[in-house]
């Protein structure tokens, strides 16, 4: 599934990972692939940023007023797993069409199937390679100029 965006030339990606090194890496990989990046260190912060936290008003745009074109999240996180975050995003009428990519250092077929069945666009094994991220950016995010 691809998302078309109009406001900016550069896709905006929200990257969620509790590991500091991985967060820095995925940010760099995405920036090198010409994406604007916002990072979050856990699921709760991600939901806050997306305006999906309980008791937050559901806006068309998130609290910051900037649209997110893709969400890439680690699976194993304390508190809320990447799967649970995916669930919350898919339950949202506003954000259910935003492609969500799950990353994991562990290759567990059940986990992969579970995520894909819940609507994850892709499941990627860590550590991510630049070639993977470039491919992802190219395939998932189409640039449309009006």
């Amino acid at each position: 599934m691809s998302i078309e965006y109009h406001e900016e030339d550069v896709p905006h990606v929200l990257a969620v990972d509790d590991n500091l090194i991985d967060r820095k890496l995925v940010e760099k990989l995405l920036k090198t692939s010409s994406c604007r990046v916002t990072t979050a260190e856990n699921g709760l912060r991600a939901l806050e940023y997306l305006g999906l936290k309980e008791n937050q008003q559901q806006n068309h745009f998130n609290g910051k007023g900037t649209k997110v074109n893709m969400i890439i999240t680690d699976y194993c996180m304390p508190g809320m797993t990447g799967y649970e975050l995916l669930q919350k995003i898919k339950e949202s009428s506003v954000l259910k069409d935003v492609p969500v990519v799950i990353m994991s250092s562990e290759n567990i077929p059940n986990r992969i199937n579970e995520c894909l069945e819940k609507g994850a666009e892709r499941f990627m094994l860590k550590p991510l390679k630049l070639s993977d991220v470039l491919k992802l950016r190219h395939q998932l995010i189409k640039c449309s100029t009006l």
Partner: protein
Amino acid sequence: MERNQMHRQIANTRKLMFDQGYLDEQFIQLEELQDGSNPNFVEEVVTLYYRDSARFLSNLDQALEKRPLDFSKLDNLMHQFKGSSTSIGAKKVKTECTHFRNYCNARNAEGCKRTFQNVKKEYTTLRKKLEAYFQMSRQVGPVETAYASSVVVCTIRYDTIHSLHLNIIHSNLPLRRCAARSH
């Protein structure tokens, strides 16, 4: 002449870390992300890794003092540290982390404690090597560092080109970055 020797030394130091299995392909991924806008990216990430690791290793030390051992907690902590180590290409450290997690799963306390000593030993060894490598690179200067990390030598004599080429293939340096200038 001294500068060339320094380049050679840096390149050899780097190559040795790969040949001896301390670093793997993931480290090269980091190097490929380093560019003009972020000329010290690799060192920055590695420095973050030291900081992060200090925390993980300290937590693991404490968790290993508890009686009885909480294997689930130990495994969680090591999963994190293994993740960071994998992300910077710390090959031997990663291997020891895997051994540790296997002992956790087997609920083998002695195995865990023993492997943890190996984890710390490999981490310390790698850290020393990386610190020396980055220090050498810094001494040579920022412009040359870009070469030093990806090219064997800046100036090459034709009669040594054949053996140099073999070196490049063996150490898996990205060929497109290789440059040869004649005197």
